[in-house]
């Protein structure tokens, strides 16, 4: 007989827009009070307009049976992480009720609470306690954890001296050895090099096979297909699909291919902002639409938009930024070329192994001559997965993989 492990009944979660609101200074709170006491009272008593809030989750309900492995998929902002945070009791639902049968451990980040000054050994015990393991449990698994992470030689070195690869391996190893009835995991498997990722995935598979209930969020659709039997697809805060994993993933891929990455028209400025509109940005690899990009495969970017009039010469431009640094731009034509009124589609192809793992911000614009332009910064983001092709951290440092040939002359 199978029993229920997780029951979620009609769960809603509301956030106020611009969360900074509540974290503002007291000066703001007081001056706002003075300026608009009525509004403030209305908000405090919960009668304020809906405009200031948005629902991150709406009427979400499902049940998970003991021993099931459920994959949660959906676009960024669809509510996956909010659901995990509620299941992990980090934040409370606004409405609804969740019942969990059994001991729950959640893993939303690797290395939470790691202290750089403490040794690997001390951090294992610290992190274990934070994740809810008893000292005895950690002590029993200690050797296994150290071996899994492969840091035997450095176990008494402060972790601030670890390479970033060693650090995440150790952090993941602790979490991978949690023994609970229900395991809630966010996108944490995307750490370390390819070999370690495979090891982590097979470890997760073991956990699932041992009859534990696993609740797993990932953008890695391959991992979801391999590990899970069932998929929950979230669309704008609602549960859009609940069923067979193959069907769920296929549906997600279809919805993604249709929409691409929507671009908001309000983010653009410049004299041309009224005349040229950018609608979507779609990334493809091997002909498949992707959300997470493999840095070691060529990338095709398709940009779609609409021009309300024709231009004798216009240049469409895509800029890549990371941490505020402008890394470079690509143009859709080698020289300025005419653009006809109506819909336009441009394609850029970027060879394999140019970008490093991580998130790059995208700016999009067009120039039709001096002083005639439109530009939107930060209108989309590209996420490159942690695929380092087996190379070590030191060999994949920096923002770009510079194409080069190196040789030792003497």
């Amino acid at each position: 007989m199978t029993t229920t492990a997780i029951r979620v009944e009609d769960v809603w979660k509301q956030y106020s827009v611009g969360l900074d609101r509540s974290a503002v200074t007291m000066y703001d709170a007081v001056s706002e009070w003075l300026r608009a006491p009525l509004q403030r009272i209305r908000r405090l008593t919960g009668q304020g307009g809906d405009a200031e809030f948005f629902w991150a989750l709406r009427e979400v309900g499902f049940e998970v049976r003991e021993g099931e492995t459920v994959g949660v998929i959906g676009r960024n902002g669809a509510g996956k992480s909010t659901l995990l945070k509620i299941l992990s009791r980090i934040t409370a639902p606004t409405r609804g009720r969740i019942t969990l049968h059994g001991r729950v451990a959640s893993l939303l980040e690797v290395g939470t609470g790691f202290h750089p000054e403490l040794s690997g050994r001390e951090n294992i015990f610290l992190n274990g306690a934070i994740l809810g393991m008893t000292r005895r449990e950690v002590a029993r698994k200690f050797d296994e954890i150290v071996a899994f992470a492969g840091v035997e030689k450095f176990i008494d070195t402060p972790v601030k001296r670890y390479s970033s690869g060693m650090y995440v391996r150790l952090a993941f190893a602790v979490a991978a050895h949690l023994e609970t009835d229900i395991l809630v995991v966010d996108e944490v498997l995307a750490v370390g090099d390819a070999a370690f990722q495979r090891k982590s995935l097979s470890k997760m598979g073991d956990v699932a096979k041992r009859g534990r209930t696993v609740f797993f969020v990932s953008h890695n659709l391959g991992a979801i297909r391999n590990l899970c039997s069932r998929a929950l697809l979230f669309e704008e805060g609602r549960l859009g699909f609940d069923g067979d994993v193959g069907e769920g993933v296929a549906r997600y891929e279809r919805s993604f291919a249709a929409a691409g990455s929507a671009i908001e028209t309000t983010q653009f400025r410049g004299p041309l902002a009224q005349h040229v509109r950018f609608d979507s940005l779609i990334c493809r690899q091997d002909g498949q639409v992707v959300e997470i990009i493999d840095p070691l495969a060529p990338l095709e970017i398709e940009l779609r938009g609409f021009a309300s009039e024709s231009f004798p010469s216009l240049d469409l431009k895509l800029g890549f930024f990371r941490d505020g640094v402008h890394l470079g731009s690509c143009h859709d034509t080698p020289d300025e070329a005419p653009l006809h009124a109506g819909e336009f589609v441009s394609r850029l192809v970027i060879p394999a192994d140019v970008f490093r793992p991580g998130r790059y911000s995208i700016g999009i614009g067009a120039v039709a001559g001096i002083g005639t332009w439109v530009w939107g910064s930060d209108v989309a983001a590209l996420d490159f997965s942690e695929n380092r092709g087996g190379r070590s951290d030191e060999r994949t440092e920096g923002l770009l993989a510079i194409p080069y040939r190196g040789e030792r002359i003497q």
Partner: protein
Amino acid sequence: MTSAQQLTIIEPPRGWRPLDWRELWEYRELLWVLTTRDVKVRYKQTVLGGAWAIIRPVLTMVIFTVIFGKFARMPSDGYPYPIFLYAALLPWTFFSGAISASAHSLVGAGALVSKVYFPRLIIPLSSMGSALADLIVSTGVLLLMMLWYGVGWSPRLLAALPLLAGMMILALGIGTLLSAITVTYRDFTHITPFMVQIWLYATPVVFPLSVVPERWRWLIYLNPMTGFVEGFRSAFLDKPFALVPLAVSFVIAVVLLAFGVAYFERVERRFADII
């Protein structure tokens, strides 16, 4: 599988709720681990290490002795000014260190709070550890000073333990309250240090209670630190205890702790959303 089936129900928060003692007890290991982490890390990568726990209060004592003992000629109830001061400076240093640390503790543990569940009360609780460790070390200096000046070393010394317990209750109450308020209003990261500084001069640390005019005594008794600081002085300098301010201090401490914890529990479910 491992444990007997445990049932957890997650629902929207509903106003004031009682503290879950059982849960807090289940997380005692985390409390211990976080406390020892803070203590271990406190003097890492310092040349003098734990000696700072002695140097800081001793230096403060020297400075205050010069300013208040020599220049201002502050009376000290017939005791040598340095030991008169140090006996009160110790509990004060503990108290101010503990509330400063816990006021900032939740904000400082933002990453933890937004990624892992545990009773949030653990955070301000564990932040007291460092102040307590420093207190124990610097008490050693005081015991030596007492030998040097030939005062104290009487059975009254035993009273220091219940006094410390009372002061910890007070520090916990104020610390949990401040930590929860600081999450919402970061202004308190700036307000707290001033509050602590003003509080020092509103407490008979650098001056004896006897310089306060009789008709204002009730006011200074309302400061819960008055009773504890005077109590420590009595314990270390072997003089009779003033029972009224002590009783007042204990009552205020317990009330503040109850209020601090209740307020904390009321707002704790919001922390992860705004931290």
